[in-house]
Each structure stands twice: as C-alpha cells, then as structure tokens.
C-alpha cells in the first residue's frame, strides 16, 4: 500500500488519540504542517478506511459534539504508521550521514 504524505499526516494525527475530521485538521495545523483541503482529507480517510488503516469509532463521552464521527487507527494502521516512521528514520539517517538538511550545509 502506498503511504502518501497526507496519509502519513493522518496516521500521525490519530497516533495518540481518536479524533474527528476537524480535530485532525487542527492537529496537523497545530504542529506546523500544511492542512489539506477538506475534500482531499476525506478522500484520504475514505481510502484509508477501505484499506483498513483507520476505522470509525463512537465519540468519547467527554466529546463536545456527540454527532461527530470519530476516527481511530486500526492495528494495521498502527503498524503502517510505525513501519513508515522507521522507513523515514532510515532515510533521515542516510540524509544526515550525507550532511543533508543541516542549516550549515548550504
């Protein structure tokens, strides 16, 4: 399965807690990422749920709006997030070994 940057962003957003759509956008925005368009995000969600990476879950009891749909990582989603993270880490190590991405490298 293909993990696009947006897929990875969503996997990260859901890694620590279940969120609704708007929550995910705020989470991505909050850590300084570029939030996707709403349409693009729902398409990604659609695809990820079809691939079994995320699932719909009931809203938590302390939710501000019970009508909202919440999403959670499946175990497969968890696995995919970890695998992708390892892959990116390896790439980062390589990049660093080649002195890429450092402020003073330019």
């Amino acid at each position, binding site marked *: 399965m293909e993990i696009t940057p947006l897929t990875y962003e969503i996997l990260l957003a859901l890694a620590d807690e279940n969120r609704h759509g708007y929550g995910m956008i705020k989470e991505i925005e909050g850590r300084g990422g570029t939030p996707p368009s709403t*349409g693009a*995000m729902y*398409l990604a969600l659609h695809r990820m749920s079809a691939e079994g990476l995320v699932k719909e879950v009931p809203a938590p009891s302390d939710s501000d709006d019970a009508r909202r749909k919440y999403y959670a990582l499946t175990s497969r989603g968890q696995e995919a997030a970890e695998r992708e993270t390892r892959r990116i880490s390896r790439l980062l190590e390589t990049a660093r070994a080649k002195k890429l991405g450092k402020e003073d490298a330019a």
Partner: protein
Amino acid sequence: MTRALLRSILRLGPAVFRERYGAELLAVHDERAREPRSVPARAVFACREVAGLIVAQTRYLALRRRWARRHSGAGAVGRAFAGLGGDVRFGLRTLGRSKGFAAAAIAVLALGIGANSAIFSAVNAFLFRPLPFDDADRLVMLYETNPEFGWEHAQAAPANVLDWREQVDALEDVALYSDFVDEATLILDGEPELLGIASVTGNFFDVLGARPALGRGLSWDETWEGRDGVVVLSHSAWQRHFGGDPEIVGRSISAGTETRQVVGVMPEGFAFPSDDVDIWAPWGWEQGAREQVWFRRAHFARPIGRLAAGVDATRADAALQVVVERLKIEYPETNRVMGAGLMPLRDFLIKDVRAPLYVLVGAVGLLLLLACINVANLMLVRASDRARDVALRLAVGAGRGRVARQMLVEGGLLALVGGALGLALGWIGVRALSTQRSVGIEGATEIALDARVILFTFAAAVSSALLFGIVPALRAARGDVQESLKEGGRAGGAGRRGLRTAGTLVAGQVAVTLLLVLGAGLMVRTFLELRSVDPGFTKESVLAVQFSVPAGRYDHRDDVLAFQDEFARLLEARPGIERVGFVARPPLGGQNWSSQFQAEGWPPERVGVEIWHRRADEGYFEALDIPLIRGRHFTPDDGPEAPLVVVINETFASQHFPGEDPIGQRIAYDRSATAESIWYEIVGIVADQHQRTLTEPPHAEAFENRRQDWGRTNWAVVKTGGDASSAGGAVRAVLAEMDPLIPIEAMRPMQEVWRSSMARWEFLLTLLGVFAVSALLLAIVGVYGVTAQAARKRTHEIGIRVALGARTVEVLGLVLRQGLTFVGAGLVVGVGLSLVATRAISSFLYGVEPTDPLTIGLVVGLLAAVGLAACLVPARRAAAVDPASSLRSE
C-alpha cells in the same frame, strides 16, 4: 458561496462518496470557514477547498478501479486485464459523447457482419453441414452421359443401372429413385389431398442408411410388380394427413389409382430427394422389364450408390467404366454412345449452386472488408481528433500500452454492438434467403443460423475490432508526444502520415467498391438483356392451371378427353375468358422428354437426335399467341382414331429439314425405323418458344396432339381479356362444378412463370445491388471523411492563400485535387482488379461480356461523380474560409 460550490461539486460526483462523507465534509468545511482569516487568505482557502474536492472526486474513480482490482484477488494474469472494466466504462462514455461516430461505425459493422452471417449460413448449409445420412461420405450419385446428345448428368436407364449394381464390386449397392416428384390425389374424408410420390427401388432406404421411425422400410423384392403394394410415409405427411396416428403401420390408403399398405414412417427431417415427397412407393416394374428394350432406352431414373468399404469415388468410377464399355458392346442399339459417371453425393447436390454461392461469398467478403476499412478510417479520423488528448495523457505519464489498450477496447465495444446487431440482420437475411428456392437445393439440407454461423460472426466482429482498433492504437503507442501536441495544436488534424494511411485506405475502398458496383452493373445489363428476350409467347393475361383427370372415375381415354374438352368449353363460355388450351408443361418450365427420330425415306444412317416432346392442342398455341409459320394447327378432327399428326417448331424444321419442306413428312421416334415404328405426319410449323430458360436458345421440339397422345395430367392455359389471376375464380368454379374431388395442383400466371425463370438472376442482382449500394454509401463516407480531414488540416494554408488573393476556384481545385487523387488511384486499381475478378460471374452473364467497356465506363463515371460530390462539400467549405479567422485559429 464556497459552500454552495462544494455542494454542487459533490452532487456532480459519485453518489457513494457523497452519501458517506458529504454531510460531514461540509460540516468540517463550515467549521474551518468560520476561522478568522485575512481577505486574501480567505480567497486562497476557498480556492483550495474547491480545487481539492474536484481533484478528490476525480481520483475517487481511479481509486475505485484500483480497489476492484485488489479485491478481485487478481494475480499476474489478472493484472494484465485489470482496469479493463474501467477502460470499458471510459470507452462507453467517450463513445456516448460522440454518438454520430458510434452510430456510423456500428451501422457499418452491422451491415458487413449481418450480410456475412446470412451468406455464410447459406454456404454452411450447402457446403459444410453433414448430410443427414449414415456414412454420407460413401454415397455417390451415378449418371449417364451422351456426348452425341449433350447429356452430362442425365438420369439413367434402369436396365443399365441393374447391371452396374451387379457387376461393379466397388459399389456396395445402388438404388434408383425418381427425382421428378409425381403427384397423386389421396382422398381422405371425401376431401381430395395432393401427395407427392417418389418412386424408389426397395433398397433405397438401405443405400441411404436411413431407418424409419415407425415400422419398416422397403425390401428389394418389393421393387417389382405384384409385391409393390406398400408405401413409406414422410413424417410430415404422417402428421398432416393422418394426425400422427401411432397405429398407421398396416393401414391401407388409397393413393392415386391403387390401394397400398403403409409399412413405415420416416423420421422427421428425412426429405430425399425433396421436401415435396410425402410418400415413397416402389417403382412396381414388371418382372420381365429387364429383358425389354425400353428399360435400357428410357433414361428416367436417378441412381444413387453406396461405395464398398475402403473404396474411393475415383476407383469406383474406374470400375464403373469397365462395365460401361462392356454394355456398349453387349447392347449396341441402346448403349453405343452411352457413357456413365459418378460423383460424391454432396458434389452432385451443390453442382448448380456452387458458383452463385462462391460469387456471394466473394461479394459479401468484399463488403465486410469495406466495412472494416470504413470503421478503421472513422477510427483514424477520430484518433487524430483526439491526438492532442492522447498526447496529453502520454505527457502526464500514462503508459503507451495503456493508451493503446483504451483504443482497442473502444474498437472492441463497437465490434460487439455491431456484431450483435449484425447477427440480428443476419437472422433476417437467412429468413429471406431460405425462401429463395432459386439458389436452394431440394431436400437434403436447409438454411438456418447455427452455432457455427454465430461463431463465424463473432470471429468477424473480433477480427474487425482488431483490424480497425489496431491502426490508431499503434499510432498512439508510437506517437511522438511533442510532435502530436504541436501538430494537433496547430490544425487539429492528423499528421501527414495519418493522412497518407487514410488516403490509402480510401483508395482501397474505392477499388473494392468499383468491383461490387461493376458486378451489379453487369447483372443489371444481363437482366435487361434477359427481359428483352422474346420468350416466343404472350405472357400477359394468361393463367396456367394444372390438374389431373383421375383414373377410377374416368377410366377410359374417351372419358378423360371428354372431361378436358368440356372443361375448356365451359370455361370459354365464362365472361372475360378468351381461349383455353392444354399443354403437358408450359414454356420456361422445363422439357418433357427427348428422343431420336427418323423421317420416312431417310437412309438408315441418317437420324435426328435429341428432339424434345410436348403434348399440346390448338388451344395452347392460340391462347399463348404462338404464331403458326406454315401448315395448320391440330383440329378436333385429329381425334384418337385419326391418323397421327404432329406440329414442330421452327428450330426443328431448320435443323433437321434444311432446305426441305417438312410439312407432309412422316417421322417415327426411333433411331432406325422398323415395321413396328409409329409414324406421325408433320402438319404444321409454329414459331420457337424458349422451353427451359431465356438464356438457352430454343431447342428442336415436336408437339404431339393431346387427343392422340393423351394424358391425365395437363396444364390448362387460360387467356383472359384482362388480368390473368382474375380467371382463377372461374377455373375453380368450373372444376368444382364438373368434379369437386379434383384438386388444382398448381396455378400460376404466365407472367410469373416468366419472371421466376429469371429468379436466379434476379436474386443475384438483388443481392449484388444491395451490396453495391452499401459499398457506394461506405465509399462516400470514406472519401468525404478523408477529404474533409485533409481540408481541415490545410485551413491555415488556405487562409493564407485566400489572404494573398487566391480565387475560390483555385481553392476548390486545391482540395479537390487531393481528394480525387485517392479516388483516381482507387479507380485505376479497381479497373485492373475487375479484369480478373468479373470472370467469376461470367457464367451468370447474358448478352454482355465481363469486360464490357460500356459498363466499366459507366461504373467508373458513376464512382468518379460520387467521389467528386463527396470531395466537393469539404472543398466548398474550405473555399468559404474567412482568412482572418483561419489565421487566428493558429
């Protein structure tokens, strides 16, 4: 506003996505929209939201396809076909967008495929389908030949066949049957019913390897008089006349003059020698017939043999020749010039239809070829219209294979729909064909669409899909993206190479069309020639009616003659009836029998061979306006007891009495007259009539007098003051008045007899005509398409020329020259091909040569005119180009 936009975009997109995520998506969008933003940021946000949703929905379709592939669990092979469903959907959508193109392509294909499957069905029925007999490959037809009389596949004299049967070891057995189906009246519940009777030898069914469904067949002993009171019924006669009575075997029926016992019923579908046979009955020859000279002289029975195991037809023929030579020496009087031969049954059955079938197969093959060329051309034009689109898809990374496959799928879709429609057309065509007896052979096989035909049709469809899908596909796969983008961008037309391909196709199309139109043209000329042939009689307002005066109630000769005379008298007394006469068989209906003759006083070595005979009376000549050249007609005074008289035709007189006066000469129908010879005096000479077909010259013929050489079955010819068929009621009324138990066996206006004698040509003409017109239409589409495309490609150039002061005529010429180059090349090639190809139909031509310069000239002229007209439309459009706008179109 952004929200409304998003909502409409959602509504345009796939329902599944909208239903599942639509509301939620909008809710989230609303929340985000409420966030404080600067005015420019709000604009960026709105744009991103709208664009994002459009991209998302478009990608959704692609995704669905990918999931479908994954969930079908396809392996490597599956992946090769993966996405086919999407290609098909995409193909349907693009075809749906260009309905004109799709309709044209489908119609063209349906036409080609339909015609092909109909004609192939006929060919299949005749040439490929197994005959419904056991070991049909071992069945051979035997025939006698006589080079002196021009007999090639003649019926045989029974005595000769009996000798072959016993003396040729290569033949396991030989049976004899009458291929002229006789008719007999069967009286059931007081109603007369006509039955077709075929006379056969007792071993007939055994030789064919056919077993009855009920009861038994016949045995060899039953061939002969005394034991011949048995019959076998056909399945249809059993159903029709006896209600399928299971107790039929053993019942006695009165057929014709005698009562016979039913011993068996044949299974459904057994119809040999023809569908008209209701009853197979033994010949009933007298035991001593073999020793009598007539049994070796009268050639009236059709022999069919079964080869001995392991013997082929060639060897059997060689063995037959040995016996034939022996018989020549043994019976010089009858057999001196008689030869014999044999050929496999199938070859014999199709010997007369083979040539027209091959012509049709050839013509229809050409038509399918044309259809494919045309669709290929349509596809090419379309491909060039889409060249930019394809190039764009290649540029953004679509695989070349993928793009090519998409085009093949489009072609395949067209072929499938066209093939299905074609099959429907073919079914209609088959129904039309099977009612055409003129190409049909009697009995053994029937035309029907079957699995093989359906297979053939779809093979044709698929191969044309490949044929016309592959050219644009190859071009797409090979295409130079940058080049296409540039070319397409400038003129929206095909590349130079594409135009050349299309032009070559059109030239080929014109050539093939020329062949078909020329074939049809030659048939038209033939048909006109045939129609202008004087048949030798008046065909208008004459009705021919066949009936028999049955034995039993009219036993004596005088009873029969009195009945016939009374019939004529009563009918002539009716209003509107001018003259009534009798003849054994009307003209253009075949010959009766033939013989040799000798005139009184001729030296023994002088003999007239192959003269034909017919029974007639003076009423016949008068009703048909057959002129009396010399002498006199028969008169009622030439009664049964009066001296025998005969009327001959002009050909007889000029052939056998050159420079002599035949009137008053006495002739006997013997090779050498003897004391027992029966002498006829020639009293009159009448003008020639065409006896069998209009193409055959009249044959020497003698008319015997109905009152002297009398017969129970005759045709009454009825001349009316007006419409021939109006006499039908009077004929029925008179016959019913005289004897309600006598059925009318046939009733045909002479006009129709004349017409149906041309049926074979009419049939070929009709089909070739339809093919030619179709071809012409296809050619117009092709020429127009290519010229229009070429003109469009040069719009820019033409605009410059017009701007520089070119006159309309010059622009017209420019475009016309290009289109007419293709047409001209096609015509030259077509005429060249035709010199060889029209030989195939030379045997169907009458009064015109296959290379007739006038017809070729007319056809070339016609095609040139049609080609010019097809080029003229785009040429005029080009000439009307506004230079400013054409230059701007860059």
